[in-house]
């Protein structure tokens, strides 16, 4: 399987007069500045330098990302949506690398404009050339309208739209309209990969000139018929009538139909037709694609990862249109994908184990809880949330998480983060007993206390928002338990 080497047809606006030397110099200076900033951040050990280089480079030349992208021959894939961006990117990268492609990605979580610019600066040499053949960018769903015009993606993938940080994004439909505006600007040579099981996502791109590819699950016996309480889009996008679901797989994702106007799930181009939980924490799936039917192993637990795998396969098909995928190769590539940091990442901590779960909205939290509750034994838990620009200010969504299901299995609970009071209140009203609950806002103290409180051989489950998760992981990194996230 080979990627077509030709560039997509030139778009309007290109072929402009030659770039004046002063502009070229500024661009080079911005690249140099960004690279120096990254080196400095690394030397000073202030994280992996994920957004700072982008800030510096954009300060020198606000069009640095645009220029780097315009000068690159790499195929550009933008992955956006509420959940699953990072894992979908990892899976798609694995598939593309198996083809021998040189793939580069922005770092997980660095998915705002500055983070994307940092990645571009890192991968572009001072003459403005990029070595990568595939540029895989995970982009925040509210930022995609800023990033897309500068990147001009060949493929835009939308994993799903869940309620995520509503205080930052306003309403879901406003976000959908923002995505639609981006999709409208894509040329006919581009492809939009959409989750067909998500009524809001599937409604996108109806008038677009870009090609559409839908992925989803067509396997029976894996879901219920009523959306979960935390479901978001349960009404018809067109006529507002409540949707009827033949089967619901996850939250509002499933096989839906509007009894009123007939709006229904589109035909799936990439359809998971069978799911068998596999013995070692994952699923064996069968997928029908235009390139043939595959039997694959998804090495990560949960239905949400089945969706991520389907998305990645659809992305792969969007990339390598003329040649069919080779099932054996795809199977090998996908089976080797490890969880992104903080996605139920198992970390050995001396005689104990830490399972680190990054939770950012009711859907990701509930999906994670479901996986954790399937594991045997009582649970030692550390729950941490902080209010930051990335994590938001509003933690009302914690009340949409089914903490009540976790409480009967709770052995001990440590609560941390700058919004520990909020988290404590949620656990208190879910029935967590005060005798087993401790509040330690400092992350390092919380980790120590949580670990010393549990017997050797047992696991500590950490449920944390982005910033406390990074902080806790850094603490474990200092102790030599885990590699830095940016070194992966």
């Amino acid at each position, binding site marked *: 399987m080979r990627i077509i080497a030709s560039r997509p047809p030139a778009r309007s606006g290109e072929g402009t007069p030659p770039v004046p030397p002063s502009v070229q110099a500024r661009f080079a200076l911005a690249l140099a500045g960004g690279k120096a900033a990254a080196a400095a951040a690394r030397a000073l050990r202030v994280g992996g330098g994920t957004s700072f280089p982008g800030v510096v480079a954009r300060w020198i030349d606000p069009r640095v990302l645009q220029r780097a992208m315009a000068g690159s021959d790499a195929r550009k894939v933008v992955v956006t949506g509420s959940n699953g961006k990072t894992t979908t990117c990892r899976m798609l990268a694995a598939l593309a690398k198996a083809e021998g492609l040189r793939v580069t990605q922005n770092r997980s979580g660095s998915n705002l404009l500055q983070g994307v610019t940092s990645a571009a600066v890192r991968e572009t040499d001072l003459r403005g050339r990029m070595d990568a053949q595939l540029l895989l960018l995970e982009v925040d769903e509210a930022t995609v309208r800023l990033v897309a015009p500068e990147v001009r993606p060949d493929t835009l993938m939308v994993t799903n739209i869940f309620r995520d940080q509503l205080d930052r994004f306003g309403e879901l439909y406003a976000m959908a309209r923002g995505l639609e505006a981006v999709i409208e600007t894509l040329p006919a040579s581009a492809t939009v990969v959409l989750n067909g099981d998500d009524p809001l996502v599937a409604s996108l791109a109806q008038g677009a000139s870009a090609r559409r590819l839908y992925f989803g699950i067509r396997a029976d016996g894996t879901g219920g018929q009523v959306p979960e309480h935390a479901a978001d889009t349960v009404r018809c996008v067109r006529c507002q009538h409540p949707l009827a679901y033949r089967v619901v797989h996850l939250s509002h994702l499933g096989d839906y139909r509007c009894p009123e106007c007939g709006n229904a799930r589109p035909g799936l181009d990439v359809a998971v037709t069978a799911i068998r939980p596999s013995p070692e924490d994952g699923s064996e799936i069968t997928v029908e694609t235009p390139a043939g039917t595959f039997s694959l192993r998804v090495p990560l637990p949960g239905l949400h990862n089945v969706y991520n795998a389907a998305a990645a396969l659809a992305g792969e098909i969007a990339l390598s249109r003329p040649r069919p995928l080779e099932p054996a190769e795809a199977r090998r590539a996908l089976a080797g994908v490890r969880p992104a940091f903080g996605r139920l990442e198992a970390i050995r901590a001396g005689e104990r184990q830490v399972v680190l779960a990054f939770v950012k909205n009711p859907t990701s939290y509930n999906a994670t809880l479901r996986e954790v509750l399937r594991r045997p034994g009582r649970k030692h838990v550390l729950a941490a949330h902080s209010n930051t620009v990335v994590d938001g200010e509003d933690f009302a969504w914690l009340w949409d998480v089914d903490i009540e299901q976790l409480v009967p299995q709770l052995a001990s609970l440590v609560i941390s983060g700058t919004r520990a009071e909020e988290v*404590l*209140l949620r656990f208190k009203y879910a029935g967590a007993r005060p005798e087993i609950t401790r509040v330690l806002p400092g992350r390092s103290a919380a980790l120590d206390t949580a670990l010393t409180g549990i017997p050797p051989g047992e696991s500590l489950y950490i449920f944390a928002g982005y910033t406390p998760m990074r902080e806790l992981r850094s603490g474990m990194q200092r102790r030599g338990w885990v590699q830095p996230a940016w070194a992966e």
Partner: protein
Amino acid sequence: MTAAPMTVRICYLYPRLLSVAGDRGNLFTLMQRCAWRGIRCSVTEADVGVVPDFTQCDLILLHGGQDREMTAAALDLAEKAGPLREAIEGDAAVLAVCAGYQLLGRYYAPAAGPRIAGLEVLDVITRAGPARFIGHVAAACDLGSGRQHSLTGFENHSGRTYLGSGARPLGQVLAGAGNNGEDGTEGARYREVYATYLHGPVLPKNPWFADHLLSRALAHRYTGVGPLAPLPDHAEAQAHAAALRLARRQAGRWRAAVAAVSQARRPSRASRG
């Protein structure tokens, strides 16, 4: 001691349709605070197409939702309007939040398109505003008891609500926007209807408010009910204090930003997307 335990009958309206910002936490709070006191709780859920027996309800919850869901709820609420109005006139307690608040008013006027008619229980009107009010809120409330309480929570709304002469505000804004960002009022009340823009959800962090609603609900059903037994509300008090701090800090930042902008006379960089 007392005879049979008391039961509060809660009607939870539109649990699927109007449930966007963790507002079901209000229900959890009411149920737990009853359970901790040995008071029983029965919950009737009523979504679209179901008209519950409002004469058998002591406390009615009507929460927030997005614009589309609100439109659908408004259509359905017309079917429930008669008995719901009667229950309200019979002093059943009501907690209405955000879209639920707007639906109890006279109308909601969106930026484009026809007005959405409300239940006209509250003498308020709501118009869509150009930008959303998003942030922490603190308000001072005196529910006629003469005792001042602070109410804290998180607002996220583009509607601007204006009170007519027939409605009293639920409180006065200490920090945040409240009803419209202009007149310093937050929420509205009428008889035992308490309407607010505050999510958070509002009840866990404001246990005095939760208990006020429970007291009114018990008074709706029973006569001669004494004050509720006190509960150890340390966690609630801490969360309340933290929310108050955040609201005040944010109010300080806004004032500073406004001052900086008017001095420098150049566009400010918004702190959030």
